[in-house]
């Protein structure tokens, strides 16, 4: 079975974000980019599935040459091959999903993993969009997964609990933290990844249906007051919560 994992290359969560000169994007200067954290769970689950049922794990990514860094990391973790769908310009979720769906069809993958969201635009929709375009089944925000004979039993996180979902292949699964513990790339894996070629081709053209017209910083909150340094401040805190904030 061919298993695809769709990976994005995003600013590290510890990065300070400042707005670029165009006022529509971030200023990437001095920002470290990493594999999207949720995609690491997706890669790990694909590798585990391959170890259990056999098959081939193929990494897909839409973006510029910079994405190769994250693709290499996925290869070093143990993925078999990778395709970079090149596009240097900004794409919205729908245009990313369109290009991914074309390539998934092209390689004939039956099982596709995504991170549940990219920590840049935080849309959390590309997996479901891709599934719907392909006519695949889909379970999002998965924290537990079991695949047997093409039957899928997945648990997805919801408010205050989990839903147990049954479906079947072909399917898209979007991974939530807690699904597994992503492995570290071994030295052997890192060396092997250097020898693997990343196939490059232009991402299929899809029109953006949305447009970011402005990006700005949120309003900065004024720091409040430090009302004490020990237990003697407790009555004042309770009074403020009750009378000023009116929240208790």
């Amino acid at each position, binding site marked *: 079975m061919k298993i695809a994992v769709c990976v994005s290359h995003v600013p590290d969560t510890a990065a300070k974000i400042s707005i670029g000169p165009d006022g529509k994007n971030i200023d990437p200067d001095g920002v470290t980019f990493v594999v999207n954290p949720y995609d690491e769970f997706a890669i790990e689950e694909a590798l585990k599935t391959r170890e259990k049922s056999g098959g081939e794990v193929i990494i897909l990514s839409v973006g510029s040459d910079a994405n190769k860094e994250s693709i290499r990391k996925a290869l070093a973790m143990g993925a078999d091959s990778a395709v970079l769908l090149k596009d240097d310009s900004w794409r919205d979720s729908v245009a990313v999903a369109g290009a991914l769906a074309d390539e998934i069809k092209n390689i004939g993958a039956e099982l596709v993993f995504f991170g549940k969201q990219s920590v840049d635009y935080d849309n959390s929709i590309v997996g479901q969009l891709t599934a719907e375009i392909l006519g695949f089944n889909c379970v999002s925000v998965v924290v537990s997964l079991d695949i047997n004979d093409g039957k899928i039993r997945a648990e997805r996180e919801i408010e205050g609990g989990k839903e147990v979902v049954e479906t079947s292949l072909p399917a898209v699964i979007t991974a939530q933290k807690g699904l597994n513990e992503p492995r570290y790339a071994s030295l052997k894996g890192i060396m092997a990844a250097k020898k693997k070629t990343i196939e490059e081709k232009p991402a299929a053209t899809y029109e953006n249906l*949305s447009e970011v017209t402005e990006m700005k910083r949120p309003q900065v909150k004024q720091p409040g007051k430090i009302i004490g340094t020990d237990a003697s401040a407790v009555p004042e805190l309770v009074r403020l919560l009750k009378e000023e904030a009116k929240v208790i």
Partner: protein
Amino acid sequence: MAKKVLVFLEQRNGSIKNAALQVVKFGAEVASALGMEAEAVTIGNNIDGLSKVGGFGINKVTHYKNELLENYSSSAYSKIVSDFANELGAEIIVISNTALGKDIAPRIAVKTGSAIAVDVVDYKVEGSEIIFTRPVYAGKALTAVKLKPEKKVITIRPNVFNAGEPGSDSAEVVTKEAGELDLREKVIEIKKSEGKLDVAEADKIVSGGRGLKGPENFHLIEELADVIGAAHGASRAVVDAGWRPHSEQVGQTGKTVSPNLYIAVGISGAIQHIAGMRSSKFIVAINKDKDAPIFQIADYGIAGDAFEILPPLISELKRLKEN
């Protein structure tokens, strides 16, 4: 005929969620700003109190009823909403940005050929055009988004748009048979976390971090949370250390929250934590280090030892509650 805004009402266990009432109010407002008409649709088996959405500004609800639809099915629900939206000629579909809403919205967008914007926190109308504001980078920045096609699907962040007090109008409820169901994905069971409030839905949250020194001390967080009816949250550091479950994590790789009250105990305020809770209305920080970044965004702070401060705080609040 006026153009339509279609609002999707989410139910759990046969009751309309509070977040869904916020969607009703929002949908009614957007419709009036754009000179459109708003209607609502919901899916489930028996659902209580549907007519009350009339009090929040929408006077017609269509209920697709079937006992097999009591629990969520991504395929069946998205097909029903999409078919109904097409039949109605709806231009804007509004959904709550909940676990269910986030799952279903992109599928409806593809099925109806709509553009999509999720997690909307504000909007403005310029002439006949509507521009949405949504956070990116976990709230470190905000974007203004224009959706080009006429057909749009949007999800709105819970607890940002207030449903307000209900009026006295009641809505007409039309019950329909759902026809043939596409049950390719089906929820067969719901596992509830035992009696706990979820941080994503709570209007008060008490979160603990490394400053609590070990998982055995989180009973202090739980006691404080219980006395004010708050959910328990946690920083990434303590989730990664295995002290608390990931479902409690607040921040960039956890949940983004905006409660009325957020109490951070022993949390220094790493950038990814602050990103996830900065939009809370009132923030209280209790931390030993007076230079911790959390104090930069806290309304009230106590720069002291959590182990000294929490016990009297808990008993003071208990006393207040009992009186």
